[in-house]
């Protein structure tokens, strides 16, 4: 299958575009539930714990950010007509600038930054790279996510 039939016009037009931004309230019970689901070793969602540990406010487990899901871009990609139908996560990365705390309002924007075609044993594979920005209520970018999705 030639490359340009995989990197469709519709896909090209999505590259560089920001998704609609979604804003989430970082709720204590939600953080607790997430921390319990991943067996997070410390009760970081408890004020008493954070004070004793000298944290400046109640922080969240680092991967809690994945729960702040902005699926707008993902849904667009999923619904787009394309010859390759299977889509799986290829990689995930989080870069932290500031701690995320219970009570924060985090705005999440997802951007498709790059689309490439790679050869694999069973044929060609599309690699979709996106960047997710997490911005708090003070306008500070607290973290960036870099993910790839594989389509084959």
């Amino acid at each position: 299958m030639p490359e340009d039939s995989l990197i469709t016009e519709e896909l090209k037009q999505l590259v560089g575009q920001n998704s609609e931004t979604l804003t989430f309230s970082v709720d204590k019970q939600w953080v607790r539930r997430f921390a319990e689901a991943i067996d997070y070793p410390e009760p970081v969602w408890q004020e008493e714990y954070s004070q004793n540990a000298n944290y400046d406010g109640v922080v969240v487990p680092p991967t809690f950010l994945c729960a702040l899901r902005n699926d707008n871009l993902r849904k667009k990609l999923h619904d787009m007509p394309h010859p390759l139908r299977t889509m799986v996560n290829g990689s995930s990365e989080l870069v932290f600038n500031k701690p995320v705390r219970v009570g924060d309002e985090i705005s999440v924007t997802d951007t498709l930054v790059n689309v490439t075609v790679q050869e694999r044993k069973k044929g060609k594979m599309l690699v979709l790279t996106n960047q997710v920005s997490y911005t708090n209520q003070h306008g500070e970018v607290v973290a960036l996510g870099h993910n790839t999705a594989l389509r084959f």
Partner: protein
Amino acid sequence: MPLQPYWDDITEGQELPVLVKQPSTQQIAKFAGASGEFAKIHYDKDFAINSGLPGVIAHGWLTFSFMTNAVTGWMGKQGMLKKIGVSYRGVHPAGEDIYCKAKVTKKYAANNEHLVELEIWTENSKGQRTVPGSAIVALPVKN
């Protein structure tokens, strides 16, 4: 509670304590609820098997979370996770062991921070590397 590691004491090649996890279908379901990731391969056994998998599998982000726990649990309260990333090369079926391993690859100072770079990875019970990655943490220094 493990002792706080100090940057001064870290040596390149040093290995971190191994964290062994064995996510049950219940834990995977709890993670689906808490994260909002409801792909069927994580809770519908028939669907997973029809998709060519041995059964329901742990979410990539659940495995990534375990790997993060191995790092944050080691770096202590004065440690700061700066960056962590992984590639999903293999899957982890429910009920099977996941070994979360890590090793120091580099120790350096930059921008007034004392940093340690880690190679992180998971192995399944057959010893196959399933999810390789890396992390950077800042550690405190002794006075």
